[in-house]
């Protein structure tokens, strides 16, 4: 059924362009039914999974390679699957409204549904190789989506940047997964977890850890790989809402959570995750405060959330993992709502710049309400889900005494309070601006998503028992042990966590009202440190390109002579190395008999002709020397019982000489002086002698082996009986290997046509042939 869901979404993607052409106004509502029904099916699995029975599914894919499409639905996968299909359905509806009348709306749905299928496969895959394939598919489809406005150079650059960063991470993922499979001997995640193999003590553990962390950190935009995410906001808003808040960027977080039972809990794991997560959270918060574009602000707060999620997995205590599950859900809901509502503001007022927004409340009350609810959840105020999540985080981190982490979280959350206030207060309650004058409320397609997601933020906050089971199952899956009972409440009483929440709120409001000095000092810090990752990225790329250019122009400089030298050197190296390594040097004892005298004379003539052709100063000299060689070869054929071959060689040799002389009459003399420099002469002589030597050695080695005569015997025995010819060679040519001869005639005909065309080309230009 999981596979069916994925296939159904792929099918919906395939028909999306056609459907959009047939029903331009309705296609998004119809298409959304597919992920919506998938979400319903996943919702029906919740009771079973919470009871501790994961859904398993296997379809054989490439049995010879031991790769299967196996899926496993436990708490973690189920939570992700629900987010992907649920938010996905509303994103499809939303994008229909957002892109209304856009000429490529159908293609957009194709991309976003393909992405949805890939993402769903990623979070449910149990097989390591399928996991990797789905991971790569999300990278590729997100490349398409970020670069959707492909006429815009910035979009293209951002798309390529995202693809290169996450694609590089994908390489690391493949290597890491293969190492894991080799180390444990199992190729499914569940089998690795169940085998109890202690990968943490394995000699390959550091390599695995580095590779898999690289994959997760690039995908989830952790510092220092964070720079692509804000740039990716060039994508249309539905993409930002979907990929860059709820789904794709959380794939890295998913990977870390999924691997926590097998790889987590060690010192390097703890330090890598808490450091990267903490720095990312702080950096994202600071940059969110500095930005003025609504989508950029949301992009940076997403960085903060990803950092916190990674930090929580790093801490890894029972409470931290419950907090992880809660914050994952809370963030996906409020951030999805905020992104879509920000797009609605952009749509209604024509701008996303904070400075140009104000007084929208009277014009866009519904959008304002949903932003307010989602922003309250982001700020972590009761009675919303964000509050519950934040309390869980504070409670556990405080209890475990991670004071540095606590300080980081306090600062980041305070920044979230200030950002939430920024998002709502000025645009909606501030003094009306010019943009507010012509602003208008958005239609149902744009508001359905924010309404449902903001509503769920409120509902889950008030009725935390509803998602509690799933959150518990998620935490169990990340912890990888026996299920633990969970009892969440909105109101915990007067606890240290509540005090910390109050502190956060006070600090956040102080940040908001003192924002301009804070902004200035942040700008000063940024100027001071001069960390411009975008510039560094460009330098890296141009360095790479420059190196490739230099290598190419060194290898391919347009001089035929050097190309040929490379080719011959390659042949010499490969054949020579093989001969040396395999010990191919043999000497089949020389058996001189009476007839060999003539052979020696002919061989000397061949070599003499060769030497003459090389030494010739004039063309005629060279042609005559070549003729000596050619005629000696013909005589050799005649001597060896091959009269047909000998006669043909005589004819062709004559014809070649005639053509050569005819063409030469139209060409200039050989230039006087040597045809190459002294070092080139030496190098070419070494190459030539080397290759000649290798050919002789190979021939000797072949001659030392017995010859299989079966085919020749067959031809000799059947030539007369079956093909009625006494000249066996002729029968082979025209009968046994007739198709070969047909091919040969075709080649001759093509060469003739080519010659004809070459000569005619001149006449076409009006010149003389």
């Amino acid at each position, binding site marked *: 059924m999981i596979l069916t869901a994925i296939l159904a979404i792929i099918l919906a993607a395939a028909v999306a362009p056609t459907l959009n052409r047939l029903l331009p106004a309705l296609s998004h509502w119809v298409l959304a039914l597919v992920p919506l029904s998938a979400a319903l099916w996943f919702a029906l699995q919740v009771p079973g999974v919470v009871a501790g029975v994961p859904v398993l599914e296997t379809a054989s894919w490439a049995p010879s390679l031991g790769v299967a499409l196996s899926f496993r639905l436990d708490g973690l996968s189920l939570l992700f699957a629900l987010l992907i299909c649920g938010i996905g359905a509303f994103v499809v509806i939303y994008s229909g409204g957002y892109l209304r009348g856009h000429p490529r709306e159908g293609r957009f749905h194709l991309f976003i549904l393909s992405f949805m299928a890939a993402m769903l496969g990623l979070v449910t895959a149990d097989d390591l190789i399928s996991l990797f394939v789905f991971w790569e598919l999300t990278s590729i489809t997100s490349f398409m989506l970020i670069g959707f406005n492909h006429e815009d150079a910035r979009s293209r650059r951002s798309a390529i940047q995202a693809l290169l960063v996450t694609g590089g991470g994908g390489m690391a993922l493949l290597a890491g997964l293969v190492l894991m499979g080799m180390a444990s001997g199992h190729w499914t995640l569940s089998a690795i977890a169940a085998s109890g193999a202690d990968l943490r003590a394995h000699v390959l553990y550091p390599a695995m850890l580095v590779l898999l962390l690289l994959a997760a950190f690039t995908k989830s935009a952790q510092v220092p790989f964070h720079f692509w995410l804000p740039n990716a906001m060039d994508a249309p808003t539905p993409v930002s809402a979907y990929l860059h808040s709820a789904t794709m960027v959380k794939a890295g977080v998913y990977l870390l959570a999924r691997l926590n039972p097998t790889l987590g809990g060690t010192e390097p794991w703890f330090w890598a995750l808490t450091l990267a997560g903490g720095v990312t959270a702080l950096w994202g918060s600071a940059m969110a405060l500095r930005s003025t574009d609504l989508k950029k602000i949301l992009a940076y707060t997403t960085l903060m959330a990803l950092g916190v999620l990674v930090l929580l997995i790093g801490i890894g205590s029972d409470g931290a993992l419950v907090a992880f599950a809660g914050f994952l859900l809370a963030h996906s809901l409020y951030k999805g709502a905020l992104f879509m509502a920000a797009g609605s503001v952009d749509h209604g007022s024509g701008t996303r710049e904070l400075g140009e927004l104000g007084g929208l409340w009277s014009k866009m009350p519904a959008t304002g309400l949903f932003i307010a609810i989602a922003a309250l959840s982001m700020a972590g105020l009761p009675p919303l889900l964000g509050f519950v999540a934040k309390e869980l985080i504070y409670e556990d981190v405080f209890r475990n005494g991670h004071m540095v982490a606590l300080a980081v979280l306090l600062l980041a959350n305070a920044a979230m309070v200030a950002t939430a206030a920024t998002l709502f207060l000025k645009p909606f309650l501030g003094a009306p601006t010019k943009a507010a004058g012509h602003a208008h409320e958005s239609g149902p397609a744009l508001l359905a998503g924010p309404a449902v997601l903001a509503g769920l933020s409120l509902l889950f906050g008030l009725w935390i028992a509803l998602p509690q089971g799933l959150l518990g199952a998620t935490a169990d899956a990340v912890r990888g042990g026996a299920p633990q009972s969970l009892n969440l409440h909105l109101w915990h009483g007067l606890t240290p966590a509540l005090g910390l929440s109050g502190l956060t709120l006070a600090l956040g409001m102080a940040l908001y009202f003192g924002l301009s000095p804070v902004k200035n000092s942040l700008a000063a810090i940024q100027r001071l440190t001069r960390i411009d990752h975008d510039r560094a990225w460009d330098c890296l790329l141009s360095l790479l390109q420059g190196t490739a250019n230099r290598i190419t122009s060194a290898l391919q400089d347009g001089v035929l*002579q050097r190309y*040929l030298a490379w080719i011959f050197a390659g042949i010499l190296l490969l054949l020579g190395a093989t001969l040396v390594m395999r010990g191919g040097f043999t000497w089949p004892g020389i058996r001189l008999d009476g007839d*060999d005298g003539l052979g020696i004379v002919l061989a000397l003539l061949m070599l003499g002709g060769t030497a003459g052709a090389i030494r010739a100063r004039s063309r005629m000299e060279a042609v005559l020397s070549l003729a000596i060689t*050619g005629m000696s070869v013909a005589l050799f054929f005649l001597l060896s019982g091959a009269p047909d071959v000998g006669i043909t060689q005589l004819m062709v040799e004559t014809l070649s000489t005639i*053509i050569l002389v005819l063409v030469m009459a139209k060409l200039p003399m050989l230039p006087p002086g040597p045809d*190459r420099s002294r070092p080139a002469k030496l190098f070419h002589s070494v190459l030539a002698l080397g290759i000649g030597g290798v050919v002789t050695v190979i021939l000797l080695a072949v001659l030392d082996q017995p010859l299989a005569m079966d085919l020749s015997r067959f031809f000799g025995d059947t030539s*007369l009986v079956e093909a009625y010819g006494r*000249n066996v060679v002729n029968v082979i040519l025209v009968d046994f290997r007739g198709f070969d*001869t047909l091919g040969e005639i075709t080649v001759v005909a093509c060469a003739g046509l080519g010659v004809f065309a070459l000569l005619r080309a001149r006449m076409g230009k009006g010149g003389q042939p």
Partner: protein
Amino acid sequence: MEVIMALAVGGMVAGAVYLILSRQYLRVMFGVILLSNAVNVAILTVGRLTTGNPPLIAQGTEVMDHAAANPLPQALVLTAIVIGFSLLAFALVLGYRAYQEMGTLDTSAMRVAEPEEKP
């Protein structure tokens, strides 16, 4: 005999490679002619050599004498000779036309497809 021919083939291949590495188009052509001759001799040689005794079926007999020369390499060489000739004819006319268009037969100066980069 085979050993003698193996040595001769090596010598011819060496000469052919040296000529093909020349900058002058005609010398490259000379190298190609030599190379195809060398390869034909090599093919016949690895099929083992017999002095005289061509692969014919004598009157009155039904099958070929097993002491006759190996017919298979002869058939292959016949094909190879003709193909080599076609290649040579085409390449020669190509060189002739190239000279007409570019006014040179120096391969390092024929750079229409890959012009020299200006530093």
